[in-house]
Every structure is written in C-alpha cells, then in structure tokens.
C-alpha cells in the first residue's frame, strides 16, 4: 500500500530561492486500490509520481511504500529492491534506444534474474496482446509515439509489480487503445496491484469512475 503523511518535497534551488514543489501531502491508497491523479499542468502530479517511484526522497513527513518507511537512511539496496516492485510509465516513455522492443519489455524481468525462456514467453504474450507482436525486434526509434507508449506500458506491467504509476499513459494512444490499456490497469488492481494514473483526459476519467487525488500548486486539495 501507499501512505503519505504531511510529505514535503522541494525541488532544487530556483531563481535564487528554493521552490517548494509538494507541500503537506497526505493520503493513503490500499493494496489493489486505483486512483486518478488530477490537476492542471504544473500542479505537481509528475513530482508526486517521481516521489512515489523513489526518484526523489521526501524532505519531511512520513512516506510508506509497500510496508517500507522511506527515509534518507534507507539502504540503497532496499530502495533498489523496492523499485523492482514499483513500475512507472513516464510521459517520455524512457525506452532503451539500443534495445529491441522485446528486450526493452523484458528488462525488468532480466533484472530480477528470471529464466530466459520465461522472459521470452512473457514478453511475447504481452507484446502480442498490446498489438506489438510484429514489432518485437524493432528499435524504439522505428516506432510511432503510440507504439512507444504501449511498449512503455508493457514494460511497466510485465513483472506484475505491486504498484504501477502512470504519467499520462494514454496521451499518444487512440481512444480504443486507451480504453484497452485502462481496462488492463483496472484488471490488475483486482489482482492486488495498486495503480495511480495521472491524466488530463476527462473523458477517460468519466468513463472509469474511481477515487481521485486533486493537486493544485503542489498541494492536495481533494482526495475523493
């Protein structure tokens, strides 16, 4: 599960003074919970997701992820193990340019030292389901934006993580593909995966009603 209490996170110094990005954030998402993360651009949605993905550590407050309290004193090896259980879909996809689509998607499994046959099987099945079965050996640069986004989503779900964080995961997808991806994410929650999706897509939010976290100017103004 995810539990934040009065968490503050400050970005680096900006224009001579420190800019507070997130302030006094408190919320909890149970195991298998789904939350929309809503708010205007610059509200701090990506920052909150980065915090939950352990790309940054909170300056103050309590942050608990999957039963581990995140403090500056947590061992780096423990953070690495935790990251293997938390997947993130970035807006810029963050695919390895030198690897094929199949190898990109199989990367989390290989880092977990899974058997190579198992990796090949899982990756092939998932890519086929995502409509990328014929592009498995292509490089990211050869794919369209939508295909790259689907690859990033496939990489995020392939290892069956405990938490999936998605930053605008459907902005390059057509409506049918977006619905397909959201359906999959909702199904994963039924299997115990906690999912937080940041989006500007109001239609999608209306189509899949779920509790939402509303951010504005780095503050949580609604948890409904």
């Amino acid at each position, binding site marked *: 599960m995810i539990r934040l209490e009065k968490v503050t996170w400050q970005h680096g110094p900006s224009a001579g003074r420190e800019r507070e990005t997130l302030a006094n954030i408190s919320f909890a998402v149970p195991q298998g919970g789904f939350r929309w993360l809503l708010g205007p651009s610059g509200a701090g949605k990506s920052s909150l997701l980065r915090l939950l*993905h*352990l*790309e*940054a*550590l909170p300056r103050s407050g309590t942050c608990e992820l999957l039963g581990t309290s995140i403090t500056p004193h947590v061992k*780096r*090896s423990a*953070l*690495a*193990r*935790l*990251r*293997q*259980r938390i997947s*993130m879909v970035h807006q810029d996809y*963050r*695919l*390895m*340019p*030198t*690897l094929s689509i199949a*190898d*990109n998607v*199989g*990367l*989390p499994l*290989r*880092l*977990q*030292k899974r058997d*190579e046959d198992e990796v090949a099987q899982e990756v092939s099945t998932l890519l086929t389901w995502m409509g990328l079965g014929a592009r498995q050996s292509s490089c990211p640069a050869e794919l369209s934006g939508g295909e790259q986004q689907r690859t990033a989503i496939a990489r995020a779900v392939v290892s069956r993580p405990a938490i999936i964080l998605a930053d605008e995961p459907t902005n390059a997808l057509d409506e049918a593909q977006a619905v397909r991806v959201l359906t999959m994410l909702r199904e994963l929650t039924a299997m115990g995966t906690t999912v937080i999706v940041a989006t500007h897509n109001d239609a999608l939010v209306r189509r899949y009603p779920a509790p939402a976290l509303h951010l504005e100017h780095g503050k949580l103004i609604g948890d409904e």
Partner: protein
Amino acid sequence: MSSRKQARDGLALAHALPDRSLIAMVAAMSLLAALTFAGAFGARELSARWARGAANLMTVQVPDPEKPAIVPSDSAAASRADAVLSLLQTLPSLRRAHRLDTQELDRLLAPWLGNTGTSALPLPAVVEVDLTSGATLPDTFVTTVQSEAPGTLIERNDDWREQLHAIARSLLVCAALAITLVGGIAAAVIGMATRLGLGARRDSLIILHGLGAPDGYVAGRFARRVALLAFGGGALGTILAVLPIAVVSRLMAPLSGAAVSHETWPSLLRDSLHSLTIGGTSTDLLIGLGCIPLIMTILGWGTAQTIVRIWLRRLP
C-alpha cells in the same frame, strides 16, 4: 545464459567506453611499470651479487710489479709483486691470495677496454685476497707493504659493500615510488574513461536505476568491462617491455660475471630472446612481470567500481 542477460540491458559498454584509448594508455603505463620493475630488480640482483662476492675480499694493486722490492722482507722475493704476495702469506686470517694472470686481467677489463688485450698497458699487478670472515689487518701491515712496494693500493671491499647496499636500497625506493606514480596515473586514466562511459550512458543508467537495478549490478557491468580492457592493456605493455628488458639484461651480463660478447645487434637480439626461452632469465623477474597485467586488471576493476558507485550516489 547469464552473459546474454547482461548483454541485453541497454548499456552496450563495448560502444560506450573508449576501448582503444584505454588499452593504449594502460599498455603505456604497464610498459613503464615493467621497465621500472626490471631496472629495480636488476639493480638489487647486481648489488646482492657484488655484495656477496665482496664480503671477505680484499683487492691489492701493486704498481710497477716487476721492479725489485725496496726493502725485501724475504730474500727470495725479487719483485715488488712477489714481495707483497709474501707479506700476504704471513697474514693469520688469509684463506687465499691469488695474483690475476694476463687472461684474467683481460677478462676483468673487457667491459671497459673491449677484447683488444691489456698487454701493451702498464697495468699494476692485481691480487685477490680472500680473508676469513670478520678478519682485520694488523696495524703495521699497510706500512710494511708500502715500504716494500710504494704506491700499493689495498682495498677492503667491505668498505663499499654498505655503500652498494645503500645505493640499491635507494634505487628500490625510487622504483617503488615510480611504480606507485605509474599506478596512480593508470587509475586516473581508467577513472576518466569510466566517467566518459557513464556520461555516454547517462540516460540508460537512469532508466536502469528506475527499473530497480542495484548499484552493484551497474558497477559490476562497468568494472568487468574496464577490467577486461585493463588486462588487455597490461598484457600488451608487459609483452612490449620484455624485449628491451631481455636486451638490457644481456648487455649487463658481464657486470654480473657472465662472459658474453655480441658483435652485432641481430645476434644480441637473438641471444636475448634465446635467454628468455631457455630459462636464462630470473624466474622472480618473470613472475613479477606476469603480475603487471593482473595488477592492472585489479586496478581497473576497483577504480571502475568506485567511480560508478560514486556516480550512482547522485541518484536516490
């Protein structure tokens, strides 16, 4: 299977690290280290050999050896050389006194005068005296010798044995400092190459870190690649150093008592290489040289591990 896994993590270190430059720089450092080590080793061996031989030896040089002795102590001794030999025979601590003949003198002076012979030169008689261990000369001995053969030079080799040791020790310290410096420069070069590789793969490293790759995994990937390149450079540098070391060893052979002469460079090279293959080179020296690639490997591995782990500390 595991090597395939490692090769498919997107780091592609074969293209990220400056392979050829790194190998060349490490090879240059290894060449310097090998030459320095061999020089120090040779100096130590020569010093030890000379010191061993000099421990109880005394050299007596009698000028104008064939002239009659001035105040002969022994009526049978007609020449100054014979007079000095007779006096030496009276020493209670004497083991052996041997006057070098013409051939022995020629051989002794060959490194300086070549093989032209010394018969035309007005050389003194040289007497090698072997004394019992810890022996001292009677107080009046030198005066007596001088009175019979003026200008006779008596050299106790003990006197300069300590100086030889001191010189050898200084050379070893200098060599150790030079090798340490070379090692430091090699580590700096390896560190810079590793940082170049980290810079080239910055985005991939951030992705891997985000996917949960432990620091040890990333550091291990870099360290194994850098260690392999460092081993290649170390081996190349050491191999390149072997020939000059062998040639210098052969050239220095007469200083350690071996009778070696070379007419031409080809024969010198041939003999040098031959001495390597037939075991004419010290095993300790060869073992020491063989350690250089291994030391470079360890240095490369350790440096890469350190640099990568420090770099990864930027990421939480």
